[in-house]
């Protein structure tokens, strides 16, 4: 029942998201074929227009794409010479984006959790104030500026990491990490500040609960009280925001992908819009929407792991 409900949600969301995204592309002025085949003849243009159903209404175009997508056909990139399937490129760039998102989230949480917990525990001390100031400073640096700074100092001057490009982990794990480290840091820095602040405020509320005083009265060590007793009930907001962020990081890491020349989803989406590859764009948006929903479905399941009271609420 629960699964069915989620599946229904998924379908409705994918339809709505792709519908609005496609409508936005409709608003772009000019003839898409001018962009798709700038040097094509009138006949080639007319053929392409028919193939893309540009001579028909938006409703027909959209429902055709939807029908194809539902059967697993993601459509093609259209050029004069050849039509490349969208799925080919998607399978190349999706892993890049997913890995980048995963590394950035892990790195952000790795720093945000201990700092969030400790700043809450040491609320009002110099440690708390320094950490918060540092967090806001990190939040204030724009992604591209940080990206360039890291490239210049760690990449060019010190030569520790590669400044642009990509290698898949299966080909060469070491190179993969050399390519990925700088974009990961660039993406994670802003997230650390947000996650830390979220966790800190929830932790402060939790630390005032009776059960924390009771844990203290049991004579437990502060470390155990903080990480075993207080962290779990304080992490629901953090988990929610981290889940919502995943969607943003999969398709929205455009600036970082551009700066580090990473062939990820953000770059591909950008390209598809610029080149009026409407079908490719719709398919990519749909894939990102599905991933986004699946991740947040997993987050919903995680809630019940973190808080057994939600488990019961779901059952009843």
């Amino acid at each position, binding site marked *: 029942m629960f699964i069915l409900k989620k599946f229904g949600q998924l379908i409705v969301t994918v339809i709505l998201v792709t519908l609005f995204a496609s409508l936005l592309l409709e608003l772009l002025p000019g003839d898409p074929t001018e962009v798709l085949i700038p040097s094509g003849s009138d006949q080639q243009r007319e053929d392409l227009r028919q193939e893309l159903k540009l001579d028909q209404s938006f409703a027909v175009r959209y429902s055709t794409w939807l029908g194809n997508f539902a059967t697993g056909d993601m459509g093609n990139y259209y050029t004069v010479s050849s039509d490349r399937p969208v799925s080919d490129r998607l399978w190349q760039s999706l892993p890049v984006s997913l890995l980048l998102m995963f590394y950035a989230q892990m790195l952000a949480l790795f720093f945000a959790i201990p700092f969030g917990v400790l700043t809450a525990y040491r609320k009002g001390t110099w440690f708390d104030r320094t950490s918060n100031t540092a967090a806001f400073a990190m939040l204030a640096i724009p992604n591209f500026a940080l990206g360039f700074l890291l490239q210049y100092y760690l990449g060019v001057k010190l030569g520790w990491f590669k400044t642009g490009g990509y290698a898949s982990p299966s080909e060469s794990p070491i190179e993969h990490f050399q390519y990925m480290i700088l974009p990961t840091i660039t993406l994670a820095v802003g997230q650390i500040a947000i996650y830390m602040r979220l966790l800190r405020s929830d932790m402060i509320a939790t630390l005032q609960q009776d*059960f924390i005083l009771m844990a203290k009265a049991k004579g437990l060590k502060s470390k155990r009280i903080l990480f075993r007793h207080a962290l779990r009930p304080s992490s629901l907001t953090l988990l929610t925001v981290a889940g919502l962020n995943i969607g943003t990081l999969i398709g929205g890491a455009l600036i970082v992908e551009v700066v580090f020349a990473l062939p990820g989803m953000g770059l591909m989406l950008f390209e598809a819009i610029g080149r009026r590859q409407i079908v490719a764009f719709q398919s990519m948006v749909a894939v990102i929407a599905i991933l986004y929903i699946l991740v947040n479905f997993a987050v919903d399941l995680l809630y019940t792991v973190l808080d057994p009271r939600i488990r019961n609420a779901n059952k009843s």
Partner: protein
Amino acid sequence: MSVQTPISGLPTPSGTPGAPKLLEVRDIVTRFTTDRGSLTAVNGVSLSLERGRTLGVVGESGSGKSVLSRSIMGLLPRSNTERSGQVIFEGKEISGLNDSEYRELWGDEMAMIFQDPMTALNPVMKVGLQITESLRFHLNMSKSDAKDTAVALLKAVKIPEPEKRFSSYPHEMSGGMRQRVVIAVALACGPKLLFADEPTTALDVTVQAQILDLLAEQQRERYMGIILVTHDLGVVAGRADEIAVMYAGQIVEQAPTALLFSEMKMPYTEALMAAIPKLTDASHTRLAAIGGRPPDLVNPPKGCAFSPRCPYVQPRCHEESPTLTPSPTAPEHLFACFYPIGSPETEEVRLRIAAQRLMATAPEFVAAPAKTPTPAEQSPVPAPPEQTEGM
């Protein structure tokens, strides 16, 4: 604490006859730094307790009774808190310990039961783990030993199906059951001193009695000293050996339970007593409440802290504050009042209040206006306290 013959059937103290008392508190003062200034929550409290005995600490909300027990135990946060005075536990001064030294005592030697079982247990941890973690930490038990002990503890606090309940979460249990778990947690390592901070306030009346009986039973078995903190004189009446009444951070009256109930001296104690509804009262009898509110502890009033609310107040009470002194008739009975219940001054006021009430409710029974002019006409005497405000 007064010297009393131990109740027969109790095990004898483990120490030698001259062994130090379980707990001795001398002149403890606790101040909190607030935005408005320094708030004196506990103001010079001294008390002592032997193993196997119960001291009831009674007072209304804000009287400092919970802060007192946390001050003694050392559980208050270090920041914003200023504490002085001595706390001597088994002959050892503990008020200057650091947190890691306190951890040796907390849970192991002294434990606390909290007021609200709905919030005192960690909602995301199974109750079994909440018991075993202190066993494993303090007594270095193995996992399976700790589990066996925890199940035995759950059984001892009369939780049905203890093996099953071991893996329950708190939200799967009723309030009374949760308070039993809280007690099991507190008892786990066999503490010698137990603080029960309003242990039954959040519970149904029927469950209250069960929990108090359970505490008494465990006290007998484990020979613990208990400090039972409550706002309800009715709760401590049958359970405590001695009662300390607190008001505005100070003990205002202290006596063995029977003596306190038979000869209460302090008008505040009397007012608390009057606030307990009686079964013999007619139905719809108005509940007696103490008028006014507890004093502001940042800027305490001059003189006796209870004077603004005291029905028997005299001019002197507004000027000087009385100290806790032994009663001339019974040295184990201490009170802080210039005009205790039974003194001519209070009796006069009592008669006048009674007469005024009679006049108001049934004037036809009172023959003519008072023949002899009462001092009420000359000296300013406050009207009897309002009966509408809550405690």
